[in-house]
């Protein structure tokens, strides 16, 4: 949303500098995303009178002598509508064309020769001045508002700053989506009472409306006419005054989808005033909309001013579509299969959530979102129906999503526009069009009025929650400044009545504040308007924190593994179906994201290692010669089912992949070293045995002949090894490749409580045995010997050697004896 400070200042007096105002808005109302500086956008652009206009023969050009206030200047103009006596806008030589100020190279107007005639500056069209797209001619200025020599910027207050507001932070404040509501907040922030403007002149006195065109035409250059007061009907109310047009009936099928529907029929009684460039055109442009025509502009202007969107239907088309001869407006939910062609010529298929406006039974507009083609107002329109209504934000939110409509109107409706002002805004619109239309009928259907909200709160409740010391009076003034009603009552007989400050503030919310329900809402108002930055930060006393074992466990692992030269990485939790297939994992076992960004991110991963294999390929290509990458993160599998909270069981894993470009040794043993040292350091006693759980998701990609599974106290906790050749070739990785994946939840549960510390003196021996056994079998034999002789020793591998041509391996181990016997080495050497 864009907010022009000049427009804003029409409703609120601002005694501080613009910078300070913007800072205050940012810190007490809403995030200001940016400020568009237009203070010099219209420099050197003047109002001029065309004194002489002569056609240059054989061209479409006109040679003009223009009065720029103190002299005549010659300009060549190509516009068809230039004529003697008109007031026009002149961009003087050296000035920048306003529409180009934000371009990389702004267009600077100069003096030049056209067809042999000197042209000094140019007469501007609306598009060049950045007031819409109209390029049909030059703009004309009402002689009542300006004289030759006036600066355009002065006449229309164009030296301005325009704030770009982040809409998201006003999701709960529909009232702030209009200049009036925004100004009210600014007044409150500045500590001043807001004067509610009356943008509707008629109030309850509908009979005073100028349906005969006798009233003075509203001047759009000035502020909207102020007189009378707003009106509120609790029930349907209607008013008719036309001999030509039939009656109007509104039928709201369900008040929960439409809280209030006001319609005014306007009957054409004359041609509308000739279109000069108006102040309203300029504010529409500054607010990010484009001037279109008198009717559309009036509805847009009022929406920007009040937050209440309006829509205009062609009355005669509306009646024809409905098939009757009177207007029957029906507001209902669409039925499945119904179709509607919108103003943008798109035909949409309606769904049962969409609210539609019908003429009789025929949908003619998608409520709150966009009008329909069949009732579009065009240049032949004689009579119009003005709609001013509110609709359920819940339905409109779905409509917005289903049909992809993001207009200024629906943006406001989905914040939940309050119903209190529909009639007043519709009337204001009728009045703005009074030179061409008069009111034929007004019907206001308001079946359900929400009760007034009253919140009781004490001064100390406000101060305690904020950590502030605001007085009762300051709180009351702050709230009344922005329209709250405040009554101060002392609660006799209550528990607190003996204490001072027992007075209760009884606060009633104004009808535009649909977001006020509870004490905290009031506290927010007070804290915000007085400035959160005025609250003194203090530190509460605190106790001691408890440990989070998993968090510390991961910290420990990160520390160890990185110290061993490995690199921690993070990869996405979402993977492609292709990646799962490459790793041999079943897509049916993965939760599938239905609105994924791309097929690459479609499934929730089941294990960590496949993502690491992808990153290994990327790094090998960089190229990085050798690396071990690891990640600790969460994984999910459908087969694990739901936990007691009925959300999927989650697993915390560490995955590791190591790869080298040149090494010809067996990668498995390096991976095993990382895994085993890690487990040992974490005080987890683990065994590495041949892989027998090859069906487990993370094990499927490992080569069973060159992988081990890791057991702790007999329980499977993970897998370490090399990958199947088929997997490796799918990932395009070089042969030296291995990795592991371990279940951290299990490791944390199974880790030992205390580290064994053994300070005994140890006898150390090396032993080499020729054997065909596996290492594990050999160790078992050694241990059995040790047991037989009553010795105890830790057995550590040294190496395995197999000379060329030999059938047997020589396995060397290092023994550290805690308990030694005389014959033990002799016996071991015989093995």
């Amino acid at each position, binding site marked *: 949303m864009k907010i022009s400070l000049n427009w804003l200042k029409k409703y609120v007096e601002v005694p501080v500098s613009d910078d300070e105002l913007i800072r205050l808005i940012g*810190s*007490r109302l809403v*995030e200001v995303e940016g400020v568009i500086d237009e203070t010099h956008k219209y420099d050197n652009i003047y109002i001029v009178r065309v004194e002489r206009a002569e056609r240059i023969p054989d061209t479409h050009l006109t040679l003009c002598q223009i009065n720029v206030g103190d002299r005549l200047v010659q300009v060549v103009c190509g516009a068809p509508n230039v004529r003697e006596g008109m007031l026009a806008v002149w961009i003087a030589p050296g000035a920048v064309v306003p529409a180009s100020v934000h371009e990389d190279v702004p267009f600077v107007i100069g003096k030049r020769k056209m067809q042999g005639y000197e042209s000094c500056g140019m007469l501007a069209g609306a598009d060049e001045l950045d007031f819409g797209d109209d390029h049909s001619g030059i703009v004309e200025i009402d002689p009542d508002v300006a004289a030759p020599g006036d600066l355009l910027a002065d006449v229309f207050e164009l030296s301005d700053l325009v704030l770009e507001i982040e809409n998201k932070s006003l*999701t*709960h404040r529909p009232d702030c989506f209009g200049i009036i509501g925004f100004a009210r907040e600014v007044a409150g922030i500045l500590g001043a009472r807001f004067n509610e403007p009356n943008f509707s002149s008629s109030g309850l006195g509908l009979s005073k409306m100028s349906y005969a065109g006798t009233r003075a035409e509203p001047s759009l250059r000035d502020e909207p006419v102020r007189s009378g007061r707003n009106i509120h009907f609790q029930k349907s109310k209607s008013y008719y005054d036309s001999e030509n047009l039939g009656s109007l009936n509104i039928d709201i099928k369900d008040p929960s989808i439409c809280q209030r529907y006001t319609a005014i029929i306007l009957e054409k009684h004359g041609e509308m005033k000739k279109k000069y460039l108006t102040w309203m055109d300029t504010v529409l442009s500054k607010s990010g909309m484009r001037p279109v025509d008198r009717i559309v502009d009036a509805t847009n202007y009022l929406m920007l001013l009040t937050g209440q969107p309006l829509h205009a239907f062609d009355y005669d088309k509306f009646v024809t579509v409905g098939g009757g001869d009177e207007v029957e407006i029906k507001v209902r939910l669409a039925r499945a299969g119904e179709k509607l062609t919108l103003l943008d010529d798109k035909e949409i298929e309606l769904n049962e959530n969409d609210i539609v406006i019908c003429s009789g039974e025929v949908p003619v507009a998608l409520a709150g979102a966009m009008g329909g083609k069949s009732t579009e107002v065009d240049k032949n329109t004689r009579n119009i129906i003005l709609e001013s209504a509110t609709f359920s*934000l819940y339905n409109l*939110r779905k409509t917005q999503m289903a049909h992809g409509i993001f207009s200024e109107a629906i943006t406001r409706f*989905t*914040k939940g526009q309050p119903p209190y002002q529909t009639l007043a805004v519709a009337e204001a619109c009728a009045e703005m069009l009074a030179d061409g239309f008069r009111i034929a009928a007004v019907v206001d259907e308001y079946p359900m009025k929400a009760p007034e909200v009253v919140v009781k709160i004490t001064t100390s409740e406000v101060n305690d929650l*904020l*950590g502030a010391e605001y007085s009762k009076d300051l709180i009351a003034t702050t709230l009344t400044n922005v329209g709250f009603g405040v009554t101060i009552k002392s609660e006799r007989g209550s528990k607190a009545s003996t204490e001072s400050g027992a007075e209760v503030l009884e606060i009633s919310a104004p009808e535009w504040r649909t977001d006020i329900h509870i004490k*905290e809402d009031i*506290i*927010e108002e007070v*804290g915000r308007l007085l400035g*959160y930055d005025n609250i003194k*930060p*203090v*530190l*509460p006393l*605190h*106790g001691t*924190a408890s440990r989070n074992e998993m*968090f510390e466990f*991961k910290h420990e692992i*990160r520390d160890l593994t*990185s*110290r*061993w030269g*490995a*690199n*921690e990485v993070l990869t996405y*939790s*979402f993977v492609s179906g292709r990646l799962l297939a490459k790793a041999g994992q079943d897509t049916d076992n993965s939760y*599938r*994201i239905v*609105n994924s*960004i791309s097929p690459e991110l479609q499934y929730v991963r089941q294990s960590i290692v496949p993502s*690491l294999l992808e990153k290994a390929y990327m*790094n090998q290509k960089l190229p990085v010669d050798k*690396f071990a*990458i690891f990640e600790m*993160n*969460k994984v*999910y599998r459908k087969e694990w089912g739901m936990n007691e909270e009925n959300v999927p069981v*989650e697993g915390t894993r560490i995955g590791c992949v190591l790869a080298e470009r040149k090494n010809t040794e067996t990668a498995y043993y390096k991976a095993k*070293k990382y895994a085993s040292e890690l487990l040992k350091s974490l005080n987890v006693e683990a065994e*590495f*045995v041949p892989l027998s759980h090859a069906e487990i998701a993370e094990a499927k990609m490992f080569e069973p*002949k*060159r992988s081990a599974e890791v057991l702790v106290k007999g329980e499977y906790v993970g897998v370490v090894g090399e990958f199947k*050749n088929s997997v490796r070739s799918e990932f395009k990785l070089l042969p030296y490749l291995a990795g592991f994946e371990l279940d951290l939840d299990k490791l944390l549960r199974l880790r030992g409580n205390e580290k064994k510390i053994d300070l005994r003196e140890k006898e150390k021996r090396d032993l080499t045995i020729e054997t065909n056994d*596996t*290492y594990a*079998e050999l*160790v078992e034999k050694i241990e059995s010997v040790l047991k037989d002789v009553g010795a105890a020793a830790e057995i550590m*591998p040294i*190496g*395995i050697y*197999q000379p060329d041509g030999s059938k047997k391996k020589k396995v060397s181990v290092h023994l550290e004896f805690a308990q030694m016997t005389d014959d033990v080495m002799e016996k071991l050497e015989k093995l």
Partner: protein
Amino acid sequence: MVEIEKLKQELKDLNAKAAGIRDLPVEQRAEFGRKINLERQDLLGKIAAAEKALLDVEVQPIDVTAWSGVNEKMPEFYTTEMGTCHPLMAEMDRVVEIYQLMGFDVMESRQLDDEYHMFDTLNFPKEHPARDGYDTFRTEEGLIPPAHTSTMQHRVLKKYRKQLEERGRLAVVVPGRVFRNEDVDATHEHTFYQCEGVYVSQDCSMGQMLGILREFFEKYYEQKLNIRTQPGYFPFTEPSLEFMIEKPESLGGKKGDYLEMLGCGMIHPNVLKQAGIDPEKYHGFAWGGGIDRLVMLRYGLNDVRMFESGNLNFLREF
């Protein structure tokens, strides 16, 4: 091996048979061709599968109980200089440590959650447009990879309710990975990290919240900082604020250069009530902010995508 030879022979035979199409009456050719083609596709598939399987058949087994290969050196770790922790994880550890020193417990966030925890328990009305602001992903089952760590608030409040009653105070931080369905560029990632804070006591105030947050940022950036707030909107806090710090000069900031660091506010009474905490008796505050941004500022990084890139040229710098 034999299997593949056999399949290849079958394919040869089939191709020979296919040549016979010319001898058939014209009206039968199409049907015949179709049949042959199906068989051919089937055979080619089988051959490809067999060849792939063959890759895994020719593998030499190793002794997985041993600690080194035959005639190979004992394996060694890579050198310590090569090793690194991921900057986000290392910084997350620091962040959590600072909060722990202030007495906050730690509870990690889930990465797959449901509508109930993500929205319902946080006072988002059903179908409310505010739910759209989070650009959530969804699974077929309607589960949600959480878009904010606030998804854990209800759990925190329930789990620590007893401690609150016993000690009069509850203080927890929730680090975790969150997800948003948005286009990725230098400043936006669909996957990033947040840290949530939840504090409840009988006498807590917004002043305390601002105090804790200022303390945290001053400890994290190791200097005095200017702070500022602006009003925000979250259904689960009332009042709601955005918390900003003035970008420190040492990190390339200049005066008046404020950065939004996190969203915060006083916990909405409905959120407390839903977790079984009496909002008449207790008040609370909560906040949540991105860790990626925090770390980028600290290290002067300008591309958030590097964090999840896995690129070792980047990661080995830390």
